[in-house]
């Protein structure tokens, strides 16, 4: 038996994410709605067409459900598994899959290279796994793909579990070019092409952007003038600019790719956000000024004699040092949770269409999914903005230089 994913069980968590996002964006969305009332007729027509389509799709799904019912899996579990599978990284790039009449799963996509470190480098194509259905045999070792992770098994592919239903098989170090790595490479290449051509167009047109550059230039300027300059300061903002720009567009583009039907969930992956947050952390602390470190270890400065500081500092200094780690930690959790929650909500709403199976419920959940999708497009931009903004803020703390005496630094550091 497969362990059902935990995320969806926690209904209150889901509801919390949904409510939070909704409350944050409902006013914006409402304004948008009033603005677009001119286009209402088109919108209504579109919704009507969508209604027809979703119900048509939902009813065949019912038939499928009966088939699966025979196999002992109900629709809800299947949807849960589908969503949790979608949220995970995978070792092949599947565009879509369908089930044949005889119950055979057919996958359309392409395999990606698997790179393992298990007493030596082992490279093979993920097509050997056949989507987890078969074992991959490399140099006499057997590997099994189980819940998107690669385990070392014996020739029969036995997976041993502990009492919590966790596999106890050895896990080789997995450096595979997974779907997420693939998307990082694609996004990287896209950004390189986009922005180097923008740079070239500047050189060609005497400092005037052309084409898509007209769209991206204001964003670059916004990051410079409204994120970097006010938060870091005129003197030192320049050296942080490349990082801020790269991280903003990287997160934004990957968030937007997450909206595509290919099921990319890069920024909603904890490893990715951790890597990004650690970069921010490293840059913050390696470029920290003397005043910044003074603030960490001597937050009260000269306002107290040393014997008065000792009892306070027993508490204060650990808090300050903890703050160093909490700041990037909040960054990584915020981005991860927002993107993950967005995907779960959309996935669940789409799944609801197949659960309702009615002329009312399915279009309704389609409408909801559509609305949430629109919000997610906004969230994609907003999360990239927040990550960049907060990184800039932390860099600002790291580059603080007090003229001791007037302390007009915003006390956001302690929030």
């Amino acid at each position, binding site marked *: 038996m497969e362990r059902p994913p935990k995320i969806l069980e926690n209904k209150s968590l889901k509801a919390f994410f949904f409510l939070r996002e909704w409350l944050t964006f409902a006013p914006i969305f409402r304004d948008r709605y009033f603005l677009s009332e001119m286009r209402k007729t088109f919108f209504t027509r579109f919704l009507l067409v969508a209604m027809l389509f979703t119900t048509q799709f939902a009813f065949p799904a019912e038939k499928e459900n009966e088939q699966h019912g025979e196999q002992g899996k109900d629709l809800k579990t299947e949807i849960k598994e589908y969503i949790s599978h979608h949220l995970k990284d995978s070792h092949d790039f599947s565009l879509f899959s369908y089930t044949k009449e005889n119950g055979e799963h057919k996958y359309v996509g392409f395999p990606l290279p698997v790179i393992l470190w298990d007493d030596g480098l082992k490279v093979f194509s993920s097509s050997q796994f056949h989507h987890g259905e078969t074992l991959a045999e490399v140099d006499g070792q057997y590997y099994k793909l189980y819940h998107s992770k690669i385990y070392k098994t014996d020739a029969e592919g036995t997976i041993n579990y502990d009492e919590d239903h966790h596999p106890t098989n050895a896990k080789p170090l997995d*450096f595979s070019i997974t779907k997420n790595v693939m998307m*990082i490479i694609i996004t990287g290449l896209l950004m*390189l092409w986009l*922005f180097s051509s*923008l740079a070239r167009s500047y*050189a060609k047109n005497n400092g005037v952007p052309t084409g898509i550059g007209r769209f991206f230039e204001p964003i670059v300027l916004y990051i410079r003038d409204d994120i970097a300059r006010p938060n870091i300061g005129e003197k030192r903002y*320049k050296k942080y600019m490349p990082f801020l720009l790269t991280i903003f567009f990287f997160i934004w583009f990957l968030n937007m790719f997450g909206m595509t039907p290919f099921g990319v969930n890069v920024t909603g992956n904890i490893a990715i956000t951790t890597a990004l947050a650690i970069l921010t952390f490293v840059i913050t602390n390696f470029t920290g000024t003397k005043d910044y470190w003074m603030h960490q270890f001597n937050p009260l400065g000269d306002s107290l004699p040393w014997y008065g500081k000792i009892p306070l500092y027993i508490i204060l200094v650990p808090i300050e040092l903890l703050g160093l780690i909490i700041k990037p930690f909040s960054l990584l959790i915020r981005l991860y949770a927002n993107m993950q929650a967005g995907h779960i909500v959309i996935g669940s709403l789409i799944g609801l269409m197949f659960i309702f199976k009615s002329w009312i419920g399915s279009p309704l959940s389609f409408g909801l999914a559509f609305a949430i999708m629109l919000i997610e497009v906004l969230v994609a931009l907003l999360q990239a903005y927040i990550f960049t903004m907060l990184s800039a803020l932390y860099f600002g703390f790291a580059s603080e230089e007090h003229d001791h005496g007037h302390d007009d630094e915003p006390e956001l550091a302690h929030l």
Partner: protein
Amino acid sequence: MEKLLEEFSLGLFFWQTLLFALLLFLLWKFAWKPILKAVNDREEGIKNALDAAEEAKKEMQNVTADSEKLLKEARAERDVLLKEAREIKEGIISEAKEQSKVEGDKIIKQAQAAIESEKKAAVADIKAQVANLSLDIAEKVIKEELSDKKKQQKLIEDMLGDIKLN
């Protein structure tokens, strides 16, 4: 938390860090640096152009002020010149008047002197002529008187009579 740790993939973390660092470096080198430089240059250019325009405007104002000043100066100078000219004119006129008066007086004096001397000469001339004429007359009269004895006699007697009377 347990789920998060379970989801954490070291390989993905490794690739993300590596690829992102690479992307950061490449974009820094080939995109952000030239883009920010171009934008900066452009802003700098705009700022410079605005400054130059402001400068030109100021210069323009300066030039206008200068020309006005010059005009004023020129006017003042003209006034001064005119005044001087008037003064000179008056001076010349009065001098000329004075000179002409002096000259006139001199001429008049000379004329008077000449007239005087002429008069004297004329008087002297007249005197001489009168003397000559009287001599001639006297000669003629005496000749007449002395033409006959009687008359001579009479004359002598008259003369003698006059002398007596004296």
